[in-house]
């Protein structure tokens, strides 16, 4: 019933997973991305955070940061939610669902960062939050332009008439994903890494890069 018209990007279609009229699909490419997201989510579930050591400048002392109690539970929950949203984004067969999952990833990323009680990390979270909010405009704007121009948001249908998605819509979605995913802004705002909790912090990186990898595939497919 469902067949991707091109197998020259992510490989042959392996199987589809329909939820009503929403039809997710797995190729070797999206399957591998799903697997990566799943593995890192499992690591989040089963890992306790590390005790990050910092040097107290001007002395011989070092101190260990600990993640305990409510903070740990909240950040773990956010990281797992981020992983689940990433899994949704990498297998979605629909541009609108993809954008929804991407914006959910953006919210979860802010959640992971913003729960750390450190002024530098909170400052980074505030900046990420602004970028994330702004990024929703081009993200959903791109999807809206696609719907207006083609009458559908299904990747199945769009790929059958490719190149169907207007260039401006592709550019807007790309900008939206970059904003929601945060990764391109690490270089400018690395204070986030003062936060302990490696399994949760790494989920930010995982979700950002996997979304970026998926959006490249979507851009080429439609």
């Amino acid at each position, binding site marked *: 019933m469902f067949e991707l018209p091109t197998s020259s990007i*992510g*490989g042959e279609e392996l199987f589809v997973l329909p939820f009503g009229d929403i039809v997710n699909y797995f190729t*070797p490419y999206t399957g591998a991305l799903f697997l990566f997201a799943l593995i890192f989510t499992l*690591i989040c579930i089963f890992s306790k955070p590390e*005790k990050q050591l910092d040097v107290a400048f001007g002395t011989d002392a070092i101190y260990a940061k600990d993640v305990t109690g409510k903070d740990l539970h909240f950040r773990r929950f956010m990281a797992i939610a981020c992983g689940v949203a990433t899994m949704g984004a990498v297998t979605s067969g629909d541009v609108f669902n993809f954008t929804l999952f991407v914006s959910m990833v953006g919210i979860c990323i802010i959640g992971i960062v913003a729960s750390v009680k450190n002024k530098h990390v909170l400052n980074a979270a505030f900046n990420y939050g602004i970028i994330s909010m702004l990024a929703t405009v081009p993200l959903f704007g791109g999807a809206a332009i696609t719907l207006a121009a083609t009458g559908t948001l299904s990747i199945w249908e769009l790929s059958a008439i490719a190149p169907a998605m207007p260039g401006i819509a592709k550019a807007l979605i790309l900008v939206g994903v970059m904003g929601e995913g945060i990764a391109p802004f690490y270089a400018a705002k690395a204070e986030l890494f003062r936060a302990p909790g*490696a399994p949760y912090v790494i989920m930010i990186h995982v979700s950002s*890069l996997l979304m970026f990898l998926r959006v*490249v*595939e979507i851009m080429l497919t439609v």
Partner: protein
Amino acid sequence: MIGYLIAAPFIGLLFMGIHRKAIARIQGRPGPPVWQEILHTLKFSFKETWVPRTASKPLYIGIVVIAIAIWVGALYIVMLGGSLLLLFGVYMVHKMVEHGVGLSPGSPYAKFGGVRSVISASSEIPLFAVVAGIYFFTGSLMISDIVQYQADNGPLLFSLFPAAIAMYIVILSKMHYGPFSIVEAKEIVSGYKTEHFGVWRAGLEISDAIKTFVLLMAFVLIFWGALSPVLLFIAMLIILISLSFVCALTPMLSPYDSVTVQLVTIVILVAWMAILGLIA
């Protein structure tokens, strides 16, 4: 395939040894024997191993397994002529591995290595524009199709020269002692690997070896096409020695300079690709 799987770590480690030797000779030093990296890995394999008390244990151990698994997967992708996009996906996941290896033990040195890995990811994202360029020219991202395209139309090295430079920079950024090797700079001890010792370090060395083998092989296949195993080995060696020259003759950049130089270079190459696309 099993033969390649067994040979790849040894050839990769040998390449890493040749790289060290070539750098040393260019700089007028005797350098270590070319099999030194193989000996290192064997030594690490039999050293006493434990997990630091401050580490996040599942992540600390699991990330080493993931490091080996992704590059074994990448080897299969290249050997079976799979998707170039997936190969670059593995490359990006390797960034997560460096990040995970760096953050999991809680050590500040390892953390700084991991953070440097993450910030340099922003400069490699535009590489996907290069992938798009290859797709535009060949009509496919399957390595088998790209190889076939070159058999019919000649090597992409000449027709898609900017893409070749971009991938060369990607490989260069992953070479030891290179201008972009900020993740394991000596001012942060061994960077993201500082706290992984013994068997864990041996695992990381093996993943590095397979990575070196896969990236060099992919470069030859994507930009020159299919070759016999002997010629393939020689071509990979030539690229490796050229990389050694670059590493030997350039200083390591500071982290932000490294990101800036890569970013500017990639932007120029993407613009060049766009012009080539318009002409075509």
